[in-house]
């Protein structure tokens, strides 16, 4: 988000002909077949598609958790091809915030410490770690739950902690893979409202869902089916914007 003003014209995410396959029963199962996707700064994009269509694989590629077999991914205009594991880790730390379906909070660890955790992987120690973590928790509405452990929080609150954790490194992109998948309808509405709010505050958000009501909260919906991008609603929405 820091780069918003300076490089408004540089896409935050640029996928060019991304392809990926997995070994399956002795053959290779082609999950993604040449995906082209561009996300501009400040956008909120929902990726939808049936289960097993390759949404998570696409998210993992965008999040630099894995490297594509073919095609190229650019983050803030910079290619990620040929980066080492350690360099990819730096890209994740400096540009990407992850939110998972299963929250993935550290058990028996306070909300504050959970949110602080990513800061320990910076080369220089972060001095104001506590203040930063507190600010992030306040921004997701958990300013009064700093010292609660995950087991003392509801599902929705746990996901808020996870979102605060994703924000702690001031990422350029928030990636959320089925962030409401483990939540009831009401809570999932609240979480989507939070993403909406974060997007309004300038965060670029990409989220995966298989529920249309959830996807409709985004200003752009992308559908994945059989490894291809079927439909991109950006054209319609661009006019409305």
């Amino acid at each position: 988000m820091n780069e918003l003003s300076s490089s408004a014209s540089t896409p935050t995410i640029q996928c060019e002909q991304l392809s990926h396959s997995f070994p399956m029963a002795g053959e290779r199962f082609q999950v993604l077949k040449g995906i082209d996707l561009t996300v501009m700064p400040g956008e909120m994009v929902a990726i939808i598609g049936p289960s097993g269509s390759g949404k998570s694989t696409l998210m993992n590629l965008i999040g630099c958790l894995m490297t594509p077999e073919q095609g190229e991914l650019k983050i803030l205009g910079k290619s990620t091809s040929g980066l080492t594991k350690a360099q990819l880790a730096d890209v994740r730390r400096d540009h990407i915030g992850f939110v998972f379906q299963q929250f993935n909070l550290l058990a028996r660890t306070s909300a504050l410490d959970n949110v602080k955790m990513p800061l320990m992987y910076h080369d220089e120690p972060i001095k104001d770690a506590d203040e930063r973590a507190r600010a992030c928790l306040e921004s997701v509405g958990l300013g009064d739950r700093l010292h609660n452990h995950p087991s003392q929080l509801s599902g929705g609150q746990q996901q808020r902690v996870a979102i605060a954790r994703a924000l702690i490194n001031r990422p350029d992109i928030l990636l959320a893979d089925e962030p409401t998948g483990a939540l009831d309808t009401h809570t999932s509405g609240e979480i989507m409202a939070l993403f909406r709010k974060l997007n309004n505050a300038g965060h670029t958000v990409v989220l995966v869902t298989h529920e249309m009501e959830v996807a409709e909260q985004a200003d752009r919906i992308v559908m994945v089916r059989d490894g291809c991008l079927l439909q991109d609603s950006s054209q319609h929405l661009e006019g409305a914007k």
Partner: protein
Amino acid sequence: MSQLFTALISLRRNMMRSILTTLGIIIGISAVIIMFALGEGAQREVEEKIKSLGTNLLMVRAEAINTAGARGASGNVNRLNISDADAIKRDLSEVVAVGAYNRGQAQVVYGNQNWNTGIQGANVDLLTASNWQVTDGRAYSESEVRSGAKVVLIGETVAKELFDDPAFAVGETVRVNKIPLKIIGLLGAKGEDMRGFDQDDILIMPLTTANRRVIGKSGRDINRVSRMVVAVDEENNMTYVSEEMERLLNQRHRVAAGQTAFSVRNLSAMLSTRAEANKVFSSLLAGVAGVSLLVGGIGVMNIMLVSVTERTREIGLRMAVGAKPRAILAQFLIESVVLCLVGAMLGLLISLLAVGLMQFGMGWSMALSPVIMLISVVGTALIGVGFGFYPAYKASNLDPIEALRFE
């Protein structure tokens, strides 16, 4: 720093498991330290003993005659004589004193008190050679040795057993194997010897008195002695004196060439040989204890592998938020080193307590070596690195996606 903190937190979560895991390390460390403390303690005791003995003592004994390796019939033993002692002192100017003596056991009675003790019948020089001080009264004289006077010197232990106050002993008459002997002097306390025998549980009397009346058998040469303690002026002369002495004794007793009739041994050399053997033995035991350290290391590796598996999702998460493989490796290495060091500290504590107990509670001689303590702690840290490496490497090499998916 924060990594160290994280490691401590994660170990505290599994307190019981951590302690059980480090049991091997705890036992290993304390065994190593205790063994070395015992070995060092024994060594120091010997060194002190040698110091108190004076370094320049030779021990002469008559041996069964030995011809070309074959032992002669029993009884075929050469006899040392008090005149041998005189001859040695006369002929070898390097010799300061020659104590010649016989040993035996006797029942000593005073009033209605009685006590069983060791006795020595000796020449006058023995008191010098064996470093005895007469703290009350006087020593016996040459003429008393010649005449077989009925006098005796009493060791502190015997004096305490027979008299309410050892200060009253001198001047009293005791019956030693029914022979009345007058106590003319009290011997200064020497304490325990190498084997833990009380050296003050003793009576010393003129050789002839002992031979004729107390331990003598009828018809025996009253000038006969079984051993001699020879004090030499300088350590450098020890070898020369022992060779000359053996030559002189062989000549005086007409021992045929090639036969061994007397043994001459360097007392301090004997003591240090024994100390050396002690040390080797306790080092060996410490080595065995070190093996238990290794076994402890394997336990640590095992538990670290379990920990990596249990925390697979956590590892995936850490990688997703930007932890490099190296950071994950470091985290688990630190954890295993911390685990080992916690074990080392507990082991250190236990060994300090045990050594304290042995030293002050049981009166054993122990010497803690800071070097050994340092080596074993550093060694344990290395074990932590060595055995922690494989689990840590395994963790750092996980694929983040698969790790995050792990159930």
